[in-house]
């Protein structure tokens, strides 16, 4: 009798499931035996840094928040690349400088576009 | 910078009808302050900010002062006619007598603003405004439209002293909660009586704790007597 090649995989799968579920089951049993649940209104309330929450969390956010995050990336990525560039600047050839210039100009173009669109002014 | 008298006359020349007083400061710093009348305060503030020579563009500090009713005892020299008999002849003579008079100076609340100039690098110029009394006429014009930095400080003055600033864009309490009723920095503020546990009390706290204990024991005695009366 030859074992199916999947048999060992099944054994491993069951072992993996047991590895995850056994502690959870033990914790549940422990809770049942020793530690009674004490739910109450304050404990189950929505967490709002200690304040009582008002209104619904499912509300629309202004797209300006996301635009700001994206524009922040321009400066962030630029800084990340500019620092090593500046460190080895004296040893670089024309090609490297030119490609860095293109890279920076591409990012500046994005910033200029956002500026022209009026994203930078917060109303 | 101009002296305080020069500023006073400049204000009076620029803002018609403005009454400006000078409150002298006798300390070595000699920082005398200008006492503004509430009706023209905003116009005066605008002048002080926009005037080419003063350019007081920075309000560094706004604060409140509570002045209680004050009983002033002063000795006044009074001249009055006295009839005297000199050499058998009645003569009416003027005589100067010292008299002690007492009068009550009504209390008021005061807002004090310290101004500097960032452009001209001089200062401070100190402004004061006084309310009519401490109870119902507690309104003063807000200087927030002139100096934006006054906003939170005027809210604090409103919260702790109870001066109501008219024209303030957002006059709410800032340190205490909204339905709090008292103004804690007033001198007649009564603290809540939570002196039940003072293990190392001394001075004022000791007195308050003793008063607290006496009141509680007194009420306990009264309750016991009432119970005894009901049983009888």
């Amino acid at each position: 009798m030859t074992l199916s090649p999947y048999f060992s995989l099944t054994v491993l799968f069951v072992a993996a499931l047991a590895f995850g579920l056994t502690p959870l089951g033990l914790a549940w049993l422990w809770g049942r035996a020793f530690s009674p649940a004490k739910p109450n209104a304050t404990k189950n309330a929505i967490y709002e840094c200690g304040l009582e929450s008002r209104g619904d969390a499912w509300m629309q956010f202004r797209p300006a928040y996301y635009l700001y995050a994206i524009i922040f990336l321009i400066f962030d990525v630029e800084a990340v690349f500019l620092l090593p560039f500046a460190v080895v600047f004296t040893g670089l050839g024309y090609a490297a400088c030119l490609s860095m210039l293109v890279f920076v100009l591409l990012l500046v173009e994005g910033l200029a576009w956002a500026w022209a669109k009026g994203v930078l002014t917060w109303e | 910078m101009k002296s305080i008298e020069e500023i006073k006359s400049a204000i009076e020349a620029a803002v018609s009808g403005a009454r400006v007083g000078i409150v002298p400061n006798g300390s070595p710093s000699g920082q005398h302050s200008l006492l503004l009348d509430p009706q023209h305060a905003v116009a005066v503030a605008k002048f002080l900010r926009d005037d080419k020579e003063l350019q007081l563009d920075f309000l560094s500090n706004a604060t409140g002062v509570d002045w209680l009713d004050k009983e002033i005892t002063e000795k006044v020299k009074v001249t009055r006619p006295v009839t005297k008999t000199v050499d058998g002849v009645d003569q009416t003579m003027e005589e100067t007598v010292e008299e002690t008079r007492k009068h009550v100076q009504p209390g008021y609340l005061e807002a004090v603003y310290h101004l500097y100039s960032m452009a001209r690098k001089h200062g401070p110029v100190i402004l004061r405004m006084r309310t009519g009394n401490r109870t119902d006429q507690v309104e003063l014009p807000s200087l927030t439209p002139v100096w934006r930095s006054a906003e939170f400080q005027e809210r604090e003055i409103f919260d702790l002293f109870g001066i109501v600033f008219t024209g303030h864009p957002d006059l709410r309490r800032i340190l205490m909660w909204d339905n709090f009723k008292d103004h804690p920095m007033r001198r007649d503020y009564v603290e809540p009586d939570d002196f039940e546990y003072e293990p190392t009390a001394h001075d004022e706290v000791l007195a308050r704790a003793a008063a607290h204990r006496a009141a509680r024991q007194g009420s306990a005695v009264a309750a016991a007597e009432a119970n005894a009366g009901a049983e009888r």
Partner: protein
Amino acid sequence: MAVDEKLKIELGKQGVFVTTLQELYNWGRRSSIWPMQFGLACCAIEMIATTMARYDMARFGAEVFRPSPRQADLMIVSGTVTKKMAPQVVRLYNQMAEPKYVIAMGACAISGGPFKQGYNVLKGIDRYIPVDVHIPGCPPRPEALLHAFITLQKKIDEQHLTGEERPPHLDGGAQGEFPVPEYGEHDLEPPSNPGVWPVPITIR
């Protein structure tokens, strides 16, 4: 349940490790006390220093500061509790999952400290929630916080699983919610929770 201490040491010498369920449980809890991440005033700076490399609270299994009360076991009240802040602190304590412990850190948190006679400072957070360890000091040094932490661990080590002595989180009848004070017109209402803080009797 209990194992004779001498027998236990003797067995340990022979390479046999004996324990009880209670010891195992307490060991597990005291070695992974996760504090809640919040600071109220200057004591919080010392609390931050305690978690950093020099004092290294991670040695005690408590480096994981949780940003949510649902995952936290320990509330370190680090600093001045103003009357405006007190309801929030009590509500956060209520929202923590059990078992939960409280360390009141610094003079302000235990009694009001230098602001005791002020108009907006609570005279000790123990008026509203049960405090396990009080640390005096203004602010207490990181060593003091570590000492408080070790004291709390010792306290947890001595807890019983069953019986009258068991801690509140194992006791179904024990209080699970502590009333959140309301903002009154002159003071917090009530000014203290008599169930948690009976007025201490001062002997003169």
